């Protein structure tokens, strides 16, 4: 595994923005834009798992889709080494090889799997499309892939509806892994699953990483799950990165007041009881179509000062690769 990782280059996200037009009126003229992702820069090293956290609507899924090439960039670019994958304002069509390298596992496996195809076709579709079957029969390839995710040959001719949620997610993972990608974006892969099954799927992803040396971008809202799997953690708020750093650092010594609020809001069995323990955040995230001036978090921030209302904080390294975008980083309310 280590040998495979050597010589691989980082996937670099540089100042990426993704915007969706807002159309209004009878003529459906563009009247504005939802700024789903704004100026995000992130380096993703081979073999590294990044946990991308945030509330719904913060742009984490859009960023993941942009990495895979499913969204057009409004600003910035994405590259592996010097090879540009996507760039704003220029139509860069990814080559087949580039598309093979980056795969995605979606949140809802039932929606992601064609209900009319048997599992055998579902997991080998990509292989056939990329001409990677190499003499191996489709069935043999399917069995090999299914075994890798803990499903047996008896699954081969079944259809998606015949499986439980956890098994369907395994099929999706088998399909993504079939192409031997270097990078896999996992969008809330375990959040729809029951606790006992969620742990199985997460352990499976970890196994596959150890075996094949893939890198994951784990998108999720459950900070405790992300903490378990991630090397580094990134927290997004309203399309921007609020904090990025080694996972342990971010959880144990969060610098951004938003990260702290998120962590405090996680209910813990056997933890200190009573709602009083938690610093409950005021208000709700503002709309990405009409973000507040200055720091996007200031209307809800317990530390907000005058400068937060006017100037957008930059993401700055606070030491040891722990970066935070906050004028009052580390201060206590």
């Amino acid at each position: 595994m280590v040998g495979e990782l050597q010589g691989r280059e980082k996937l670099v996200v540089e100042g990426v923005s993704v915007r969706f037009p807002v159309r209004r009126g009878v003529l459906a003229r563009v009247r504005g834009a939802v700024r789903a992702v704004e100026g995000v820069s992130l380096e993703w090293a081979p073999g590294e798992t990044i946990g991308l956290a945030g509330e719904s609507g913060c742009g984490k899924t859009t960023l993941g889709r942009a990495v895979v090439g499913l969204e057009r960039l409004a600003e910035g670019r994405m590259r592996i080494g010097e090879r540009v994958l996507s760039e704003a304002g220029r139509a860069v069509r990814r080559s087949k090889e580039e598309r093979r390298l980056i795969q995605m596992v979606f949140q809802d496996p039932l929606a992601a799997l064609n209900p009319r195809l048997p599992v055998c076709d579902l997991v080998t579709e990509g292989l056939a499309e990329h001409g990677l079957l190499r003499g191996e029969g489709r069935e043999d390839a399917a069995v090999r892939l299914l075994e890798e995710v803990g499903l047996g040959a008896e699954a081969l001719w079944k259809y998606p509806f015949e499986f439980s949620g956890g098994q369907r997610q395994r099929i999706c993972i088998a399909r993504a892994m079939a192409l031997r990608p270097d990078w896999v974006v996992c969008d809330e892969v375990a959040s729809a699953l029951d606790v006992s099954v969620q742990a199985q799927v997460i352990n499976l992803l970890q196994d596959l990483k150890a075996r094949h040396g893939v890198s994951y971008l784990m998108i999720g809202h459950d900070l405790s799950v992300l903490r378990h799997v991630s090397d580094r953690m990134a927290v997004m708020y309203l399309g921007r990165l609020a904090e990025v750093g080694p996972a342990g650092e971010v959880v144990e010594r969060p610098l951004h007041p938003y990260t702290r609020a998120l962590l405090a809001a996680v209910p813990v069995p056997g933890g200190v009881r009573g709602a009083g323990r938690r610093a409950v955040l005021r208000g709700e995230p503002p709309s990405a179509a009409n973000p507040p001036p200055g720091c996007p978090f200031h209307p809800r921030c317990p530390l907000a000062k005058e400068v937060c209302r006017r100037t957008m904080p930059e993401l700055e390294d606070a030491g040891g690769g722990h970066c935070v975008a906050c004028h009052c980083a580390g201060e206590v309310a």
Partner: protein
Amino acid sequence: MSAKVNTMGAAGARPDAAFPSGAPRAGETVLSVEGLCVGYRGEGGSRVPVVEDVSFELRAGRMLALVGESGCGKSVTAAALGGLLPRGMSVDGGKIAAAPGILRAGRGLAYVFQDPGQCLDPVFRVGRQIVEAMPRADRRRSRERLAELLEQVGFHEPERVARSYPHQLSGGMQQRAMLAMALAGRPRILVADEPTTALDVTVQARLLRLLADLQRKENLAVLLITHNLGVVAEVADEVLVMYAGRAVERGPVSMLASPRHPYVEGLLRALPRLERGAGPLEGIPGQVPALGRRPAGCPFHPRCALARAECRERVPEWREAGDGRALACWVRGGGGR
């Protein structure tokens, strides 16, 4: 619905009836469920059990959490309380009994469901929908009562919210509006079925705090249905864990610190925790059995590391284990009586 079951209508079934003179005191039992069995007719005409032999009590001013994974029957149990079982399903046995004078007077059961977006009618303003749920006595001063309800669920601008259509509110606000609607019927019992599952953690925290406050102030008996053990530990007084249609362990919320049933133990171990750091999680092998394919004996035995011969043959007896705790397990249930 079988004859021996006494089910009452949903919230505010008879809103104009006089309120009972004595409100229940905190801790008093307002509803008891004994040996509840729910099932439906499967292919070939045989009964498929969904809920089997579940018993619990709801007390005024207390919150009981019904916990379990999908398919364990927790939502069906909740639906059975208000006679809201889906078509085809019916109560096959057991007794649901309300304390006299409590539910008959229309101080009924109110529900809050998981997806507020689907429960609110998109074409009516929120305020109108809440007024609709009020008993007749309150409708004469509906404006004041509406403002009072909306303030109670934490809205600072009740007029604006009342004028809004559901789509103009965020998920957290919609859920609070649903809560206001549930309270409009002046219920004694509130059944909250996964009320925070669709919400973000920060919004979830606020809703839970609100629920706990209301329970205390209004002396409500709350049945909280959830799969999230963290949520349970935060707000509930008592916990009942279900697996494959059966109750497996019950006790005060502190029991989560030292569960006895192997399933509950496994669930807690499978839970990722912030303080544990990185590393593999301990899942429970296998999966929850599908309806109609539940194993004989203890429903958990195929996934249980401790299973022995009698677990495969006989359903474990429900045994009291002291300190208000009880469980159904041949291995951990303590010596037989």
